[in-house]
């Protein structure tokens, strides 16, 4: 299972709604894109389902680079899910 592990980070209200800052998950082999991973994560808890309900409001970075939903996810990746940024 370790060889399929993906680290998922949540920030801002995604962290608040999932109740999780970081988790290591092992999605099934069929999950090969960011979009599919998000759909799969929704099943982990009601908090996940709430946080990820509207994927249009979620931004994604893989290994600290912004990506789109069709971006591949590979074992060992760091996938970050967060709202549009509001710094500055």
């Amino acid at each position, binding site marked *: 299972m370790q060889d399929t592990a993906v680290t998922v980070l949540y920030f801002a209200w995604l962290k608040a709604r999932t109740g999780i800052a970081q988790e290591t998950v092992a999605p099934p082999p069929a999950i090969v894109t960011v979009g599919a991973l998000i759909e799969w994560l929704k099943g982990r808890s009601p908090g996940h389902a709430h946080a990820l309900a509207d994927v249009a409001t979620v931004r994604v*970075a893989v290994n600290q680079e912004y990506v789109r939903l069709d971006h591949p996810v590979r074992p060992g990746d760091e996938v970050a899910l967060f709202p549009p940024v509001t*710094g*500055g």
Partner: protein
Amino acid sequence: MIRVQAEDFDVGAEIERLTAGNIRVGGVASFIGLVRAMRPEEGGPDGGGGLKAMTLEHYPGMTERELARIEAEARGRWPLEDVLVIHRYGRLEPGERIVLVVTLSAHRQAAFESCAFLMDWLKTKAPFWKAEETASGTSWVDARATDTRAAERWETSGGNRAAE
């Protein structure tokens, strides 16, 4: 140069350090972002509420990468002698400094434009999130369409009027 830190910064000392001894610099543009109180129409003092504090969360690692990328972009677009971006995180009260951007160039338009560019891109690309703490609780700040539009103007125009 970019710095992401919890601590405050000294604007005068930073600008002095950047300019000292560099006689190729003709203009220094800077911007300081501060935590400001809410106005009544935003739920400020006269409208109930009122901002007690702002907490800035960020994505350590990615924040530094994005800011370095934004700095590199500015240096590619304008002939800059130096660039400094400092962005704080953590809990900040009204009146406290959040961000400092300083750009130095031979010419003022390059300094002004690159400073505005850095702020616009930073606001739409650097992974920071603000939560507002008021008497009625804490809530995450929504991204503003005006910030997105401000950043977009640099995509279309190239924005390098300084090359004239």
